[in-house]
């Protein structure tokens, strides 16, 4: 890991939401740093405020306490150095793959031939060469998520934020896309922050993993993953991988069961209706 100034600083973030049942503290005093080139994952059970944290860091949410700094600037709204990849299907269905990927370049005012060429580079990078002229509707879910990834990478962000980008995909596709992420990581030295609830994914990809508590979301522990790089999905079979997995699951288990109990008591109370 390069020793330098942290490129992303998250300081004492507290975010509360008004709900019918009163004030809900989604994120409670979370702080961490991300170094240039580092891959950090934030893992926690559903409802621990991971996505809230993602939106705060991306500048899509305000009204929180604490501050987020990107390369020394305090974040107030979406920052030019931050690229975001969302959990939901987010390709533009009216644009072809190449026009989707070229989108941020088009917004930046790059000339057409130049941006098409740039876009092709990132399409190759995510392994979708040959599909440039296709529309998202013609692609599989995993391919569409790679289009979104290429689109965000094309804006050449200093920090890549990903919110459970593979959550909707099956396990095998997820492992293989993880390989793709590792390979891109190797090639671009891309600083990445991944929000996930998937243990395997977190250990497979990360340099460090931040485990969050269930509601309110606090930092429970930060685990350093000292698996050698370059990695591939084969690392999943190694003893070290198993040890890290067990360690993080030990941290996570308690939180996940709290979430489960909470869900059960809510269902019992509301008779199954969502509040």
């Amino acid at each position: 890991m390069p020793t330098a100034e942290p490129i992303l600083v998250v300081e004492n973030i507290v975010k509360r939401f008004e709900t019918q049942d009163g004030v809900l503290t989604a994120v409670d005093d979370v702080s961490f740093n991300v170094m240039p080139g580092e891959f950090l994952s934030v893992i926690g059970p559903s409802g621990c405020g991971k996505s809230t944290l993602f939106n705060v860091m991306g500048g899509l949410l305000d009204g929180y306490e604490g501050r987020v700094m990107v390369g020394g600037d305090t974040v107030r709204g979406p920052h030019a150095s931050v690229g975001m990849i969302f959990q939901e299907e987010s390709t533009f269905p009216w644009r072809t793959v190449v026009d989707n990927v070229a989108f941020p370049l088009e917004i930046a005012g790059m000339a057409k031939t130049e941006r098409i060429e740039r876009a092709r580079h990132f399409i190759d990078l995510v392994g979708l060469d040959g599909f440039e002229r296709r529309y998202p509707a013609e692609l599989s879910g995993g391919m569409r998520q790679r289009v979104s990834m290429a689109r965000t990478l094309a804006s050449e962000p200093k920090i890549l934020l990903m919110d459970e980008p593979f959550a909707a995909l099956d396990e095998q596709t997820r492992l293989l896309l993880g390989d793709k992420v590792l390979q891109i990581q190797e090639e671009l030295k891309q600083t990445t922050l991944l929000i996930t609830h998937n243990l395997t994914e977190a250990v497979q990809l990360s340099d460090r993993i931040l485990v969050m508590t269930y509601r309110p979301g606090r930092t429970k522990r930060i685990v350093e993953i000292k698996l050698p790089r370059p990695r591939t999905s084969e690392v999943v079979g190694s003893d070290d991988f198993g040890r890290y997995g067990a360690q993080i699951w030990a941290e996570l288990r308690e939180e996940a069961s709290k979430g489960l109990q909470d869900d059960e008591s809510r269902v019992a109370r509301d008779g199954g209706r969502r509040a």
Partner: protein
Amino acid sequence: MAQTGHLTGVPAPAAGPWLSPVTRLRVAILLTLLVTWEAVAASGILLREVVPSVVVIGRSLAELLFHPDLKWPVDIGMGGLRFAQQLWVPAFYWHLYVTVMEVATALVIGGFAGLAVGLALGANPFLSKAFERYLYYLGPTPKIVFFPVMIMWFGVGPESKIAMGTLSCFFPIVLSAASGMRQIEGVLIRVGRSFRLNTWQMVTKIYLPAMREPIVNGVRLGMGVAMIGTLLAETKLSNKGVGFMIIDAYNTFDMPRMYAVLLTLFVVAIGANALVGRASRG
């Protein structure tokens, strides 16, 4: 019918030895209609003047389309070139021109107004709660009841017809734009924000393309009712336009001519619909 979806084209019709069964049936329906009509005309069950023979209507149609009976002053100036002349044309084309211009103007005014108001309603839940109830109830109200008001406001000329067309097409367009905007996936808007689009880029690069289908459907519905509004107004009180031709033929009891105008009008309406339908496929 409109083909939805983005790239999947219409499957090529089976290249049969002759025509597809559907096409054959369609032709058969038309032929049956013609034969039935002719049989009724020949039988004399109904007045011959009310149901004239197909041949008589055909003759009238030919006269309508090809007999020049109107001097149309044309004056086109382009740069140094100037073309100014009086052309003898069949009067029908001039009336058709009047009606098409009325409908087109109505569609432009009503379309832009509907789109702008629809976007505002779609973007603002408070406004939409306050106003949309009224729009829903006013939407299906027959607009022709406002025609006397429009005559008072805009006179008996094309302006009052344009007002009727505008009033008619505003409602379907505003409602489909508002609901189309609400149906946009929230994540696409977050993508736009994360790429730091300004308001204009958000509208042109995300909102409008994402809303294309509902907007085109709204415009298609709007065009239909704009034609109805305009033609209805022309038949009530006017001295030009296709609606006027129809009612004029009726008043002078020239039934073949009336049928000829109606037939031509069908063709024009079908063509206009096909044009908008093609735009929706893009």
